[in-house]
């Protein structure tokens, strides 16, 4: 499209193409510039590598914290019976009445399973476990109450929901009172959410650092190519044409940095695996470390690409505008 000379045809330039092929050619050009800018990074391998490693490390830290949270969550989800509710039934109740209660409770949608432990059963267990066996025989009567153990469904295992369920159960007329040991569960959950919050905060800080690092790297490369940008502007390059290679560089930094971060997390997990297995062995648990899966790799990469794009975009918008051909 010639602005000044309407009749001037542009000699096989992109201008006399129709819509679809124009789009095709601009896409082709975009991809070509992407490959070019990758080659450009290859020309200064040390500098590019350093930037990539800094980015990789900045992304590794939040990724690692994320993995830690994920694993802790996994461990804590193993403590589902933590939210078991013990219901002490009234003493005057006979066995048949207790059985009806058990059956009625089993119909609750909030409850997964119900089990009944009679006082004699409880005493027997207590004798075995406590080691007071002989001493207990001296008791005149069984001091233990009849207990109904209630396991809520997953949704009602969370401290608050379990508390609500407990209140509801206590309203049953056969129930003397109920007990829910959730203090430590509340503490664990509080710790977990603290951990999550700190991962979020640290992550936010480090991700802003990534934007700044990429922005600054791109700024330096813009300064380095000042003369080239001036000449391009002189021969009539559009801003989009001048911006694209720098944007691409930012995107590449993101892609490779994100991949470096992923690899370091994988390597770290591999390194820790045997140590974790040893700890788990001591606790007789079959806990295995969970790493990052494919989806999380994709999220990490797209996050890194987004950051690379933002960083370079900010620099490109800010600095290329100021480079004009006349200011030599």
């Amino acid at each position: 499209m010639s602005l000044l000379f309407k009749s001037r045809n542009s000699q096989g330039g992109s201008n006399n193409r129709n819509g679809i092929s124009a789009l095709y050619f601009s896409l082709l050009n975009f991809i070509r510039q992407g490959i070019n800018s990758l080659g450009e990074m290859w020309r200064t391998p040390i500098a590019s590598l350093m930037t990539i490693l800094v980015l990789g490390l900045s992304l590794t830290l939040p990724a690692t914290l994320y993995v830690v949270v994920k694993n802790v969550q996994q461990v804590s989800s193993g403590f589902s019976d933590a939210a078991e509710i013990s219901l002490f039934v009234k003493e005057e109740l006979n066995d048949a009445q207790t059985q009806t209660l058990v059956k009625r409770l089993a119909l609750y949608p909030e409850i997964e399973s119900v089990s009944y432990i009679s006082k004699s059963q409880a005493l027997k267990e207590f004798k075995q476990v406590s080691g007071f066996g002989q001493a207990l025989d001296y008791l005149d009567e069984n001091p233990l109450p009849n207990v109904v153990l209630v396991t809520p469904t997953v949704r009602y295992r969370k401290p608050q929901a379990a508390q609500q369920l407990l209140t509801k159960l206590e309203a049953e007329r056969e129930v003397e009172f109920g007990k829910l040991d959730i203090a430590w569960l509340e503490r664990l959950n509080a710790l977990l959410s603290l951990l999550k919050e700190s991962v979020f905060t640290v992550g936010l800080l480090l991700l802003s650092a990534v934007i700044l690092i990429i922005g600054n790297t791109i700024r330096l490369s813009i300064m380095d190519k000042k003369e080239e940008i001036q000449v391009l502007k002189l021969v009539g390059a559009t801003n989009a044409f001048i911006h694209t290679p720098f944007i691409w560089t930012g995107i590449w930094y993101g892609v490779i940095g994100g991949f470096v971060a992923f690899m370091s997390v994988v390597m770290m997990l591999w390194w820790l695996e045997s140590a974790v297995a040893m700890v788990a062995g001591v606790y007789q648990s079959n806990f295995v470390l969970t790493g990052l899966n494919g989806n999380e790799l994709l999220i990490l990469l797209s996050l890194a690409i987004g950051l690379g794009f933002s960083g370079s975009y900010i620099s490109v918008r800010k600095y290329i505008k100021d480079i004009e051909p006349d200011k030599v």
Partner: protein
Amino acid sequence: MIRFENVSKTYPGGHRALEKVSFELADGELAFLTGHSGAGKSTLLKLISVMERPSAGHVYINGVNLNVVKNRQIPYVRRDIGIIFQNHRLLDRYNVFDNVALPLVIEGMHHKNITKRVHAALDKVGLLNKVKCQPSTLSGGEQQRVGIARAIVNSPPLLLADEPTGNLDPELSMEILKLFEDFNRHGTAVLIATHDLGLIARMKYKSLTLDHGRLITDLLAQEVL
């Protein structure tokens, strides 16, 4: 082709580079722009290539008022103007071919056409054998000719040259001028800023003389000479 109407340019800081300059350059005309250094020659060229905007007055190219050209349209204006510099402004990172191809690459031209046109342009300036060279390995005159090839590679209707012979000896200067005459014969309008008065004297072309930002030479009087 180019028309200036009472164009003034004052730079920030108060320096008046041009004062009420009016002239017209016809289609396909070749003209010289002369004057002592600092007289406003470069400013005048910058106004044509929209590197600067006039403080007052209007500049027209082919009847289009440059004042109405928006900033984002400037690239398209420059694609119609070939610009040649005293320091030729070649990019040392690229070889001669890539330097000359630049205006075509930014237009998104097909690779085959680019090769054809670059070779044609280099042939015109007699440097076809230096296609693969780095600009820094060429002599001053050769570098200037590469710069010219870059300016004409997309056959712009208008050529601007800012002291194109500034660093060259008279013989090479004459050679470069012959090139410009050749382009002019093919219908390209050419405006050459130079302080090389000896060069102008030998050629029968219009010349515009600037003195402290004012145009002092009557074009008609010049033609009588």
